[in-house]
């Protein structure tokens, strides 16, 4: 069952969609908040994450997906988007879910660039968190460079402007109107600086081994975090750099099915 709604404070309402099994029983349901990926990552992965949420709900879980402030159906002009705001909205979503009755400990799933607000929020937590990162961004400067390069490709190589070159405004990036400080803030992100509280559980799902992630896992383990890697054996990592596929929907089906299984197995799912 899909239930759209608004939550949060009246001056910063957020659009959310709750997935749960129709007629579910009243026993404690495993709860998951899906942190929204940023910008086009979020639009491209929308249906994939919807499907995953529905799959988990059908197995008895309760899943919250939401649009951060200034994105999707939430309020705010796009230019108001900030990393701090994304982080705070994630914490709001977690708090909303935790406040519901009949839910166990709330887990977070963050796909790709959603790892940034998820890790930033988790590192501020005072009690253990339960976090799953899927193909995460570990270095914001790399992502910022990739996005700037993709923006140039969209303007010049993707076939958007066959008649004459487009001249963007300073606020334009990848189809969104962003504040000038957004990209520098993104570039400053370094996952290594995000240490989760001791007792937390962290899983990172990858399509290919990444030494940066391995190092990050070890650092978290040294801090008392139960951290591990899930290797996805289906070679389905989307090519995020392909200019011609930039607006395509991303749906790595086998991997998504694997993620559903892993999330169900390694949680308190019934």
């Amino acid at each position, binding site marked *: 069952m899909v*239930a759209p709604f608004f939550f949060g404070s009246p001056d910063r309402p957020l659009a959310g*969609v709750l997935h749960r099994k129709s007629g579910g029983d009243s026993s404690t349901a495993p709860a998951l908040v899906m942190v929204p990926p940023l910008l086009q990552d979020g*639009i491209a992965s929308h*249906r994939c994450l919807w499907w995953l949420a529905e799959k988990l709900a059908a197995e008895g879980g309760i899943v919250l997906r939401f649009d951060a402030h200034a994105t999707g*159906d939430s309020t705010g002009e796009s230019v108001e988007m900030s990393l701090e705001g994304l982080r705070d909205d994630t914490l709001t979503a977690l708090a909303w879910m935790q406040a519901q009755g009949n839910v166990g400990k709330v887990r977070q799933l963050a796909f790709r660039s959603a790892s940034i607000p998820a890790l930033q929020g988790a590192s501020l937590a005072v009690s253990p968190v339960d976090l799953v990162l899927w193909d995460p961004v570990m270095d914001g400067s790399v992502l910022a460079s990739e996005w700037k390069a993709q923006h140039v490709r969209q303007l010049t190589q993707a076939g958007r402007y066959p008649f004459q070159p487009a001249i963007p405004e300073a606020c334009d990036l990848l189809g*969104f109107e962003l504040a000038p400080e957004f990209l520098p803030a993104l570039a400053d992100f370094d996952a290594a600086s995000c240490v989760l509280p001791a007792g937390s559980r962290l899983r990172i799902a990858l399509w290919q081994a990444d030494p940066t992630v391995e190092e990050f896992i070890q650092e978290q383990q040294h801090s008392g975090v139960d951290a591990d890697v899930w290797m996805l054996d289906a070679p389905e990592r989307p090519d995020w750099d392909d200019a011609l596929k930039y607006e*395509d929907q991303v749906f790595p089906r086998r991997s998504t099915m694997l993620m559903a299984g892993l999330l169900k197995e390694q949680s308190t799912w019934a």
Partner: protein
Amino acid sequence: MGLIPPSTLDAITLGEAGTSETVHVFGSGLVGTLTRPARIDTRRPAVVLFNAGLVQRSGPFRVYTQLARAIANRGFVVLRFDQSGFGDSPASSGSADDQQAMGAQAALDLILQETGTHRFVLSGICAGADAAFDLSLKLNGVAGFVLLDGLAYTSTGYTMRRMLPNLVRPTKVLARLKRMFVKQSQDTLSDEDFREFPPKEEAARQLGQLVANDARMLMLYTAGAFNYFNHARQARECFGPVVDSERIQVEHWPQCDHTFYLRRDRERLNTLFCTWLETHFPPTTQVEMTNADADTIRPPNIDD
């Protein structure tokens, strides 16, 4: 972060204009967001936005969310919703055409029920435009449509305009050929996988019928229609003299791309759309929806 859990809200209010939004599940479990102005004139049509390709109801680069709010700030109700199998809506059984028609009817019923508005302007980008056009004579109460990179047909004029400049720019020809042969990944789908225009003569007849019904039509073509449309005069070349009607407005924005990638193009779209609505559907003596009225309203029925 405070200690008080974030509340669940029935509706949200947007800015000083008093525009509000609510979210709904309707029909066969379809999900939609209804944007309404502070005061509803039920004689002015509501705008219905169909999914742009496979993108959810907020639209590519959030263009639908921003468009809906701009339109509502000008006094019109707007519904953006996810058709069956798109965005947040589950897929339902039945043919794609049936699902589309039933979903659209359910959308109109929702608008009527929630706001008392019984006239509608259908709109969308790309496949959304195709849906709007296809349904414009199938649904009761359609007062017009706004097609963004909707249907059109190549013409001799199109071919001449397309070929002549490229004869002196071979790099463009090569680039185009390369794009034609790029292999698509199995895990990605693009809009071109889903479009099919009716025969040209049928489309022209339909436009004629809509003109006869006093429907108002805006057809905007961007550079995204480059493969089949490249000049405003092409509308007459492919649809014939019906487009001379004052009820039909054709715009060609060759500097704008298919999904309004740049901020100024989204703003320009908002302005065009709003101006067009205000011109063709000016304010009437205000008739506001009340709760008592809601009980006596019967929804329009879809034609068989």
